[in-house]
């Protein structure tokens, strides 16, 4: 059933080369995301979930280097090997086939540009042809109705837009785009884009989108900013949406709204979502399947219902036990998250696990399918 997976990560190893030593951030991550589902990627801070999501877009910044592994993304009938793609092709995938939304929405927006400017950016980058064609249609309409000088101007613009379609790199176009007054011909495209953006913001339940579109990021509330970021991510109908803790920094009420919105949008746009979070409650609400990460490894992956009823990995079990319940004592996992410069040998959880076997410090457990669609990396299950 491999072709059902829109994303497959196999044995991903990633190291950060820092002054303090080599941080072995990802230690053979295995992950699969089915078409049309929401996969929750859970783990504590520092376990590597954000790094994993960035790797999916091949956007890990230096000093991080992907040592080995495979990330396969299915675009319709084609399968793409993300890690071996040329930069040119990656640029076409990012923002269009795979997009990302972030934890701090206002930080994800450039403070000196308006909402319109930043969302238009996505349109101009990936859906330029559509915009040009729509602008052409409008211009031809206007040219028919106009006379004299106005008509000539419209005809001139039409020729420019046609040029953009056929020969975008022509010297003539590049030259005119730099001249202050002449380059206003691009405004038609921006107007068309603006209409699309306003519609998009309406879909995202932003009230008064005409006004919001002209605002700057610092004028937006957290919830509104996050909707704008989601709008940018969904502008091109991506196949895969990576959500990196999108509701962590929002008020609880806003959080609920955004989660519901995401669920609806998912159904509407038919995207798959990789939902990175540390909040098991969110996983229960939104996700179909869940993958648990610890210290650079995915230790358990499976269906959400099954996971919550019967977690297999000791870490996952402790996680679920440590959810505070009323009238019960506070349970925590003993010890602390290990340093990834000198991680524990063998299974990285062995020094905090209550079922440690003799083999655990010696050999790293393999990630195997223990029951149908339920994977664990633990020596207890052989």
């Amino acid at each position, binding site marked *: 059933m491999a072709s059902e997976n829109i994303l497959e990560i196999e044995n991903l190893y990633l190291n950060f080369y820092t002054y303090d030593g080599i941080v072995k951030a990802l230690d053979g991550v295995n992950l699969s995301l089915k078409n049309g589902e929401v996969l929750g990627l859970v783990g504590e801070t520092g376990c590597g979930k954000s790094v994993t999501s960035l790797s999916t877009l091949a956007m890990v910044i230096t000093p991080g280097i992907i040592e080995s592994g495979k990330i396969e993304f299915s675009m319709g009938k084609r399968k793409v090997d993300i890690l071996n793609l040329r930069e040119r092709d990656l640029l076409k995938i990012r923002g269009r086939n795979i997009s990302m939304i972030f934890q701090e929405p206002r930080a*994800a927006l450039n403070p000196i540009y308006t909402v319109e400017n930043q969302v238009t950016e996505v349109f101009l980058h*990936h859906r330029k042809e559509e915009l040009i064609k729509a602008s052409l249609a409008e211009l031809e309409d206007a040219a028919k109705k106009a006379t004299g000088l106005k008509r000539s101007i419209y005809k001139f613009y039409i020729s420019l837009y046609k040029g953009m379609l056929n020969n975008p790199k022509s010297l003539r176009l590049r030259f005119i785009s730099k001249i202050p007054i002449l380059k206003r011909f691009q405004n038609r495209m921006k107007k068309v884009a603006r209409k699309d953006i306003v519609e998009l913001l309406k879909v995202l339940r932003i009230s008064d989108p005409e006004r919001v579109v002209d605002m700057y990021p610092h004028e937006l509330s957290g919830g509104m900013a996050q909707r704008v970021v989601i709008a940018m991510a969904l502008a091109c109908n991506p196949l895969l949406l990576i959500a990196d803790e999108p509701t962590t920094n929002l008020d609880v009420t806003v959080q609920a709204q955004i989660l519901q919105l995401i669920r609806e949008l998912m159904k509407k746009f038919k995207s798959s979502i990789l939902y990175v979070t540390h909040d098991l409650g969110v996983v229960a609400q939104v996700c179909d399947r869940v993958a648990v990460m610890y210290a650079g490894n995915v230790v358990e992956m499976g269906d959400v219902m099954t996971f919550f009823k019967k977690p297999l990995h000791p870490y996952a079990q402790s996680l679920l036990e440590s959810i505070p319940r009323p009238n019960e004592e506070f349970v925590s996992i003993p010890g602390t998250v290990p340093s990834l410069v000198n991680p524990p040998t063998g299974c990285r959880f062995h020094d905090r696990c209550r079922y440690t076997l003799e083999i655990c410090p010696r050999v790293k457990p393999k990630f195997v399918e223990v029951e149908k669609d339920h994977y664990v990396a633990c020596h207890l299950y052989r």
Partner: protein
Amino acid sequence: MGLREYIIRRLLLLIPTMLGVVVLIFAVLQMIPPELRAVIYVTNPRQLQDIPNIVREYGLDRPVWEQFITYLTEVLHGNFGYSVYYRQPVLEGLLRRFPATVEIALLSSPFIIFFGIWLGTTAAVHRDKIPDHVSRVMSIVGTSLPSFLLGIVLIAIFVAQLRLTTVGRVTNIGTLLLRIKNGTYHEFTGFLLIDSLLNGDFLLFVDVVKHLILPMIVLVFIQSATMVRVTRSSMLEALGKTYIVAARAKGLSKKEVIYKHARRNALIPVITISGLLVGGMLGGLIITETVFNFPGVGSYAAQAAQSFDVSVVTAYAMFSAIIFVLANLIVDILYAYIDPRIRLG
């Protein structure tokens, strides 16, 4: 708050700051005994013979607040006293020498700013690679090398040894002064660069430019160190922000991300520094002018200082400070205009 309110508020703030500057200079002057201090109120040389009269007339032995009122009034009337060393009213001397300083400062500024921004951006983008190391070396050398030393070495090589140019503003100031006297050269603005062209004297223009090169080299070398450092750290900070990651996730190329997103943001504080840099230079390049014997406002004060000419030195300090405060004001307003977070409140 809006831009207009911000500008108004900022302009209002100007008054106490200017007042503070005057108060500080006044305080410095108060350290000097009245007889020696009297020269700051003198307007013509004859009065120098009659100091006790000045002391009485301007109340230099009265209580402090009365003295301050007198001082403030005189300053606002443009009476900055008389220079014993130069034998002229101080204000006249300052204004006469100002164009020379402006020429060096304004001519060097674009080089400093553009070079600094370019190197700083490159260093930040190619962190820990060659451009970064170059920028680091530049910064360190620029802050450790005294400008007078660089000036001396350049003079020794290019003026004395190679005889490519001379110190000063023109090769032969004597002939120029003579020409002004007998009317063959007309001073329109006081800026030699402009006036020489207006007088149709291209040779003079070239001569002036030749004399500006060495001081400019010193200035550009030393000052761009600051520019590079500020641009670099500002760029690094901008590049580390989440919106850069978000922009890349949108599929924008590295170049687009650097120039459209990171640099615009990074340049905002850089503009502030540039403004302060230019303002500081306009206030006087004391050392550079002294080394190159350049007749600007800085060397005017430096020579007077050696002879303990109180009126010149204090008036010059006030002059510099006022220019710097005005530069600050312009920069603040520019900053508020550019950064929408401030513009829209």
